[in-house]
């Protein structure tokens, strides 16, 4: 199960970064009514957190290399290798994201131009996830060479992106409250409606993952080649226990958030709920993050190649 650990970290972190960026963008779009300043104040800390995490992820990918000093050579075969394209999109996403975060921090450019830059960054980020998935569509590896790889990578992107943003939003609010610099009521409402949207997105992505998995396994099990059969054995038999833990963790995380939020709507304002407010979204994120890490480890553990 410890195959390719640097790649597990790299792919999960890069996808979470893209997802977070897109979710922050959606919060800006849907929250426009509350006013740009309010949204900026609420969401900028999350934006600034993406950068260092993404850089860590990119560095982790270099640990996979035999000769990391020449890592830049990976950009030399853009016309044919998805791995080259993945690295290009990764660097572009990091650079554009960094530029956008700087513009937000120093208030460079007009708000309109900043928004255009953010849109471009989000598109490049989605391109990163797309090329990432394509790296694994090798005709010689039936367990990876599936539409499910693409769908699952995007589901991970939006699931982790949503929950990561949710966690950072409540932690930021809590830190500000303790410092005595709590935001106004409008900001609180933005956080609440963001959390609601995040929970709905997380439930939807959970649904996608739970529907895709049995279809994918069924296709793999009936594909017929020795490599596909061996991959099913690895996923269901050898590492079947991990698969169960993965599903339970992801389900618990999303369910926890959903139940908490519905209670909050039913009986707003109780003291216990205020205490839990900062904890539950973070716990939900931790559970789902752990589940997704195990899921990605299983993805690499399912590698069996056709032929010799």
């Amino acid at each position, binding site marked *: 199960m410890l195959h390719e650990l640097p790649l597990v970290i790299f792919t999960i972190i890069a996808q979470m970064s893209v997802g977070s960026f897109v979710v922050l963008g959606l919060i800006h779009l849907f929250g426009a009514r509350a006013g740009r300043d309010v949204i900026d104040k609420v969401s900028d800390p999350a934006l600034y957190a993406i950068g260092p995490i993404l850089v860590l992820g990119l560095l982790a990918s270099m640990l996979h*290399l035999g000769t990391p000093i020449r890592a830049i050579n990976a950009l030399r075969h853009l016309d044919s290798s998805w*791995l080259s394209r993945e690295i290009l999109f990764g660097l572009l996403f990091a650079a554009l994201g960094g530029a956008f975060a700087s513009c937000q921090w120093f208030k460079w450019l007009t708000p309109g131009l900043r928004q255009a830059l953010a849109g471009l960054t989000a598109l490049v980020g989605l391109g990163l996830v797309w090329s990432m998935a394509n790296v694994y569509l090798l005709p010689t590896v039936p367990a990876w060479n599936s539409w499910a790889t693409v769908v699952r990578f995007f589901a991970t992107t939006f699931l982790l992106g949503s929950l990561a943003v949710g966690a950072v939003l409540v932690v930021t609010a809590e830190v500000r409250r303790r410092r005595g610099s709590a935001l106004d009521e409008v900001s609180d409402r933005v956080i609440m409606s963001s959390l609601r949207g995040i929970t709905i997105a997380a439930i939807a992505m959970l649904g996608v993952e739970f529907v895709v998995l049995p279809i994918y396994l069924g296709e793999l099990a009936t594909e017929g080649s020795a490599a596909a059969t061996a991959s099913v054995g690895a996923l269901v038999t050898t590492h079947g226990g991990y698969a169960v833990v993965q599903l339970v963790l992801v389900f618990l995380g999303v369910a926890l958030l959903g139940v908490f939020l519905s209670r909050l709507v039913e009986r707003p304002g109780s003291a216990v709920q205020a205490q839990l407010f900062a904890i539950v979204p973070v716990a939900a994120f931790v559970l789902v993050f752990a589940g997704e890490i195990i899921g990605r480890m299983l993805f690499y553990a399912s590698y069996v190649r056709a032929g010799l």
Partner: protein
Amino acid sequence: MTDMTKANVTKANVTKYKQLGFYVDQASCTGCKACQIACKDKNDLPVGVTWRRVAEYSGGGWSQDQSQGTFKANVFTYYTSVSCNHCEDPICIRVCPTKAMHKGIDGVVGIDPTACIGCRYCEWACPYSAPAFSAAKGVMTKCDFCQDYLAEGRDPACVAACPSRVLDFGEIDDLRKKYGTTAGIEPLPDPAITKPHLVITPHKDAQKSGHGDGTLANPAEV
């Protein structure tokens, strides 16, 4: 021979072949693995790095004679010696992000150790396990068709070492004229994937790629 003359010989050989290929006679191979060891010795390969491997493919069981009620064994095993097949459509070159993997002289698939970053993507992709990662060098390594031997007019180490004379090499068109065009035998993959420059004379129990009911008996060795 001095280095200088060696270089001249190599130069003279640049256009000797359009496309080199290997031939293996499965029907006569005893699975002794002398080819594998000769390759390891000639190229001084460390433990875990193998440029030529011998796959042992086994299967079968008991079949019942209904009229007599008796059983007889129909087990089989055959061997396939495989190195890099210097394919026509090499998936390793397609996926390599650095262009380190390339088609060189005589159609030999080579790796530039000064460009390779050791990402091992070619190793994931190649259905013949041809590219081998060298932990000591931090880059991929692979069969170079013993181009130094060829330049001296000698056979590749594997071909020269075979006591059963089941290996041959040469211009792929000549090999195909002489031995046929079969390359899709279990446990090797469907040749349509990479179009290997390999010709096999099948063993009498050989099964077609994708239609095998046996298993690779020595997975740790290949």
